[in-house]
């Protein structure tokens, strides 16, 4: 039974389109995250929600809009896709990072913008 699942795993789309990625966790965690991993493997946090409340909002274009309908789900919608948005997007969850709490990652959603 997958702990953090995200769909779709692969997305190929044209510049200017809008796309969404969905994430669900069945671990009962309070905090969920979206990370972007570029071609050089650098992991960059984008957003974090704790119990449906946005707590981390890094410098991300406002074309990216996260939504958390409940604490088990965190979706990412991207408007007007650009070439530079091509990356792997990872969803993650944790109970708490206060004591170095573990992040559980999904398998990633590989976005290619043509």
């Amino acid at each position, binding site marked *: 039974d997958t702990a*953090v699942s995200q769909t779709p795993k692969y997305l190929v789309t044209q510049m200017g389109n809008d796309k969404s990625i969905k994430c669900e966790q069945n671990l009962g965690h309070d*905090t969920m995250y979206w990370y972007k991993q570029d071609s*050089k*493997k*650098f*992991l*960059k*946090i984008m957003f*974090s929600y*704790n119990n449906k409340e946005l*707590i*981390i909002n890094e410098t991300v274009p406002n074309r990216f809009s996260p939504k958390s309908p409940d604490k088990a789900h965190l979706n990412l919608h991207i408007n007007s896709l650009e070439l530079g948005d091509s990356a792997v997007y*990872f969803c*993650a969850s*944790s109970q*708490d*990072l*206060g*004591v*170095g709490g*573990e*992040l*559980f*990652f*999904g*398998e*990633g959603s590989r976005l290619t913008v043509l």
Partner: protein
Amino acid sequence: QKEVEQDPGPLSVPEGAIVSLNCTYSNSAFQYFMWYRQYSRKGPELLMYTYSSGNKEDGRFTAQVDKSSKYISLFIRDSQPSDSATYLCAMNNAGNNRKLIWGLGTSLAVNP
């Protein structure tokens, strides 16, 4: 200067070798230090976690933190082909406890 520096490699070693992976950091407030392992086309998974300075051992893996030098290491003994992956260091401090700062990751290949 990045907050966390990690040599991306790639590092290639023969099976059975001892592997040393390292990160340096600049923020003296960091207290929690983690190593994540990421297999190709998978998400990262926590391998080792250390609080403050010292050593921690788990099977073939040893994590070391030297806060005076702002330097952390991961040692892998008797490396196996199944250890081939990217190893990412990550760290944070109690004041900003939900935001991990990540290294670039080191790509390791263990050859049979």
